């Protein structure tokens, strides 16, 4: 499709760009008084308008911009996740004490631009777009992580993020050039064709390219051993940004991982993905399985030792990437469905847990777990939902986290492959129970009951409660979400 025709299907992204430019202009031409408020309102409007555009936008028959971007239901599902995460973060930002004395104009602007990058990540079909979109997300995230300019931890996190980001995207770029050298084209379909027609005995080339690309993608989803930035960045960044980074760019990374690796390193991408097989001679499943096992084990084991809640949640988010990677080993339609389901559920659980951390910080200034003593008595309206989020993150019924995990494990069980990985996953869930329940124990079993309860701004309480609803609801009635995911996946697997 030519550029001019494509713009009709590119409306959400164009709107984001337009609003970003508008925010820049307002930022410089409106006086400082009330500017934060105006830009906040405008940003929320932007999210709503983009949501409407995304909802009404028709599905084109072919890829946009000469085959470099897809506007299919698969990418649309991920775009909903990004929009929802951005909207929630926008909504709670004015009520976050950490951001009180900062000029939030750039904060909102960069969040919007990061969202644009993630939109492109979810629909990339071209090596250049893959790299470009990852960079848009990364550079925006660097700025946001270091947003608290006078806070040393925030500066440290930003610098570490930049260095890791530059390093891993450099390696990924080298992997992409290898693929380009093989195919002579930047389209991932051409690359797949070139890889499938490699002469016998040269699978090593595909393997090297795969590992190099995994460095870049693994950095985005914080896969071990490319996770080193995660705890420091999550601890140092403003908590709203930590919440955002743990959900949205991770989902975007998985969108890339599923589509790009699935097409590029699949033996035949045109077959229904129920029976996805990797390129002959490429140990795709084993490679990912090892990464998945490492990611969950290291994430969970290190989370046990953390005393800072934000650091603990950071390691837990590493572990969750491992659970989702478990399904990537098989990459069939069922695996895609399980990962997308888990990402949607994880959005609510993890954002919820972080919003609770923000409320606690607002009220008491705590980040250390031991300080959370008796919070169950002081702020029951926040502590009880926190319990539900933690149950969800552990994967206990009747929360949505349980259903999500069941689907992830079912992928391995149904395929009758990688039994050992499923065992590692179950053992890891047991380990994670320890540190999640530690927070619950500190909140409800330590400390004394108090007469007076504290409450935060009603908007924050409402957000926490609103995030709790889907975690509980999707735990008992999840078929609408599953149906949405299945309809998004029919382009890969018509029978689903």
């Amino acid at each position: 499709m030519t550029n001019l025709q494509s713009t009709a299907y590119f409306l959400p992204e164009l709107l984001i760009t337009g609003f970003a430019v508008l925010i820049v202009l307002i930022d410089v031409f409106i006086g400082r008084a009330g500017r934060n408020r105006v830009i906040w309102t405008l940003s929320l409007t932007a999210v709503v308008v983009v949501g409407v555009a995304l909802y009404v936008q028709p599905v084109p028959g072919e890829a946009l911009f000469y085959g470099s971007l897809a506007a299919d239901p698969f990418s649309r599902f991920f775009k909903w996740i990004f929009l929802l995460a951005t909207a929630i973060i926008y909504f709670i930002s004015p009520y976050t004490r950490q951001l009180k004395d900062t000029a939030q104009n750039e904060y909102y602007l960069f969040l919007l631009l990061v969202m644009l990058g993630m939109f492109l990540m979810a629909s990339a079909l071209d090596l250049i777009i893959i790299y470009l979109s990852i960079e848009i997300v990364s550079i925006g995230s660097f700025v946001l992580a270091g947003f608290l300019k006078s806070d040393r931890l925030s500066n440290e996190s930003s610098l570490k993020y930049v260095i890791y980001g530059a390093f891993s995207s450099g390696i990924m770029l080298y992997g992409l050039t290898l693929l380009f050298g093989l195919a002579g084209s930047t389209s991932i379909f051409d690359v797949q064709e070139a890889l499938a027609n490699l002469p016998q005995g040269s699978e090593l080339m595909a393997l090297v390219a795969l590992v190099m690309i995994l460095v870049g993608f693994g950095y985005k989803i914080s896969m071990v051993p490319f996770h080193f930035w995660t705890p420091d960045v999550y601890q140092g960044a403003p908590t709203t940004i930590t919440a955002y980074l743990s959900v949205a760019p991770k989902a975007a990374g998985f969108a890339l991982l599923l589509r790009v690796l699935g097409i590029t390193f699949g033996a035949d991408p045109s077959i229904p993905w129920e029976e996805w097989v990797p390129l002959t001679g490429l140990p795709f499943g084993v490679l990912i399985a090892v990464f998945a096992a490492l990611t969950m084990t290291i994430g969970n084991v290190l989370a046990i030792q953390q005393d800072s809640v934000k650091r603990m949640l950071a390691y837990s988010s590493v572990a969750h990437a491992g659970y989702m990677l478990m399904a990537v080993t098989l990459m069939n339609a069922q695996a895609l469905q399980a990962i997308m389901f888990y990402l949607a559920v994880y959005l609510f659980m993890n954002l919820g847990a972080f919003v609770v951390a923000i409320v606690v910080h607002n009220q008491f200034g705590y980040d250390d777990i031991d300080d959370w003593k008796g919070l169950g008595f002081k702020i029951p309206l926040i502590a009880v939902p926190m319990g539900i989020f933690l149950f969800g993150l552990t994967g206990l019924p009747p929360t949505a986290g349980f259903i999500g995990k069941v689907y992830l494990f079912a992928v391995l069980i149904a395929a009758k492959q990688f039994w050992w990985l499923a065992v590692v996953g179950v053992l890891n869930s047991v380990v994670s129970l320890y540190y999640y329940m530690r927070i619950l124990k500190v909140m409800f079993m330590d400390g004394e009951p108090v007469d007076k309860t504290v409450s935060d701004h009603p908007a924050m309480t409402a957000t926490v409660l609103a995030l709790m609803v889907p975690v509980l609801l999707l735990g008992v009635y999840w078929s609408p979400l599953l149906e949405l995911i299945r309809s998004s996946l029919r382009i890969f697997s018509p029978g689903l």
Partner: protein
Amino acid sequence: MYNDFAPILIFSVLSVAFIVIALFLQKILAPSNKGDLKSSIYECGEEIEIDARAQFNIRFYVVALIFLIFDVEVVLLFPWAVVFKDLGLVAFIEMLIFLGILTIGLVAVWRRGDLDWVKMEIPYALGRYANLDQAGSHDSAVEPGRD
């Protein structure tokens, strides 16, 4: 297929070996009498003022970044200009939009005062450049950019 890469392997081995041998040979053959003058850095006969790894004003970075953006813009304009006649009006409008967004960036930078080397409106500058301000070079109409 890997045979095609054999020359590269041989070349890399040879180049590493060349460096090692050359350094090793000069180590044992060359006379070594070090002195202060001899181990100092030669800069076209000029005497060294300070260490090159000094801290310098962060505003150099801002200027460098602004320069970089417009430099890349020009790099993008060249290939566009080469194929412009084949692509026609759509390419022209696309480039106008691109330049428009960049111009908005320039306007933002300008309004924020990042183009002025001496930023009068930021608090700490008033101490250091207070006498400059009295000389009347300060345009008080500029709205404070940074908070």
